[in-house]
């Protein structure tokens, strides 16, 4: 029995998880009203249209708010305190994630800092995280 917090995709969310395996942030967009949204769903939460599609988002985002969890699950490859974050995508949606590839301290994690999507192993599943843009330069 896998750990209960290892994500279990459904047919409706599978394209997002396929994107994670390909290193791409794949989210939904409504063809009718143009609204990008998350989490995946077969109906647009903005206008109720069923004419929706998946697309590859830029992966660009900013840090809205966060906590630093002192004792995270040991399913992550890295140990020690870990950020839990509200991340705002350039396309608009807000989602829960974690900021990786940087120190997990208030001095390093600055509100509104530029982030980009990255993909991390979580108990054998590839999941979406974000990293500071500067770290890559």
């Amino acid at each position, binding site marked *: 029995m896998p750990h*209960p*917090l*290892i*994500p*279990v*995709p*459904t047919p409706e*969310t599978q394209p997002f998880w396929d994107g994670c395996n390909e290193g791409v942030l794949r989210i939904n967009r409504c063809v009718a009203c143009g609204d990008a949204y*998350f*989490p995946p769903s077969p109906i647009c939460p903005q206008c109720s249209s069923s004419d929706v599609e998946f697309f590859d988002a830029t992966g660009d985002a900013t840090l*809205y*708010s*966060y*906590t*630093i*969890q*002192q004792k*995270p*699950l040991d*399913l992550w490859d890295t140990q020690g*305190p870990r950020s*839990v*974050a*509200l991340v705002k995508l350039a396309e608009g949606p*807000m*989602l*829960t*994630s*974690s900021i990786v590839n940087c120190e997990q301290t*208030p001095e390093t994690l600055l*509100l509104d800092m530029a982030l980009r999507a990255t993909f991390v192993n*979580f108990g054998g599943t590839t*999941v979406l995280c974000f990293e500071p843009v500067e770290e890559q330069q």
Partner: protein
Amino acid sequence: MIPPGATAIVGAAESTEIGTVPNVSSVGLAIDAAANAMRDAGVTAADIDGFTCGYFPVADMSRQLGIFPSWADNTVVGGCSWMFQLRNAVAAIHSGYCTTVLIVYGESGKSTRRLGQSGDAGQRGGIGQQFDMLYSGGQAAATFTLPVLRYQREYGLSDEDLAVGAVSQRAWAVDVPRATLREPTSVDEVLDSPMIAWPIRRAMCCLVSDAGGALVVTSADRAMDHPKPPVYVLGTGGALESGVMSAAGVREPLRPEFIRTSGDAAFASSGITHSDVDHLMIYDAFIHNPIFGLEGLGFVEYGEGGHFIAEGHTAPGGDLPMNTSGGGLSYAHTGAYGMLCMLESVRQVRGEAANQVSDVDVALCHGWGGYWSACATLVFGAHAQ
């Protein structure tokens, strides 16, 4: 619209013991509380024709109690489920579906880890399980609290000012015999408590307790036939928003619309204004919940809630007594605190609270469910209006 005071709470009780209750399951706590509430109301199972319990299969529980209801609910939206159920019971009684409803809650959050009950979050393949809970490991202290840092930065609320909320509620709990934590505390002590999820420390998080609670609700025309003074339901509100543990599903995380929607409905249906509120309960799973509640309900402007608490308005001696039992931080918090939250409001309106506020004519009670997923607002009164 249901007229203010069309229904009333005529029976209300907690489980005989709360806090740490070994060797009693969630079911046992619920049945104990139900029995106490029926005795408090002077009724037996034969007088009950409406039933709701939330965390248990509804017919399992009603049958154990010897109740054969013609109306049942069992809405589960997290910690405020029993507040939603009260709202639904008011409508059911007013519409004639039933005359007298028993609302039952029990949760062995500490001793038997919820033995005998079903949960409300995190199903495999659910949105929360796939896209939210993995990041926090399901730890509420790291997720429910996500807007706190943004709030502090946006509105200039220091850690010291934030900590006052925990100090104020402990100050209430000192005089409450059934409260779990009764030693006075200080801002320094709160800020020295172990870090759980920066900037949230242990003393900013609720307790983990065992408790049950139950209410008996009936129509106003029957309300005088019971031993205790009726606590009239003057108005109700409820709303849903996030759907996940974090605030990622809240459209405006610092100005959550669901709080305003619920509060506006409660004020409109009761006909009261903010200045009518003599006593306030705002469900505190974590220290920031009352801040967001005060603002969303319109007691203060957005951005003022943290400072309002820091200035002592809600503490003993303040002009807006809030969470007078000590709340989830100091009294008890099982996992779902909504029933315990309502029971303090009922005690205050009846005049039987440990920290009795003088002349409570109107009491407002606001609770959360599923983190930022649901909230409910209830207005109780000593008079039908």
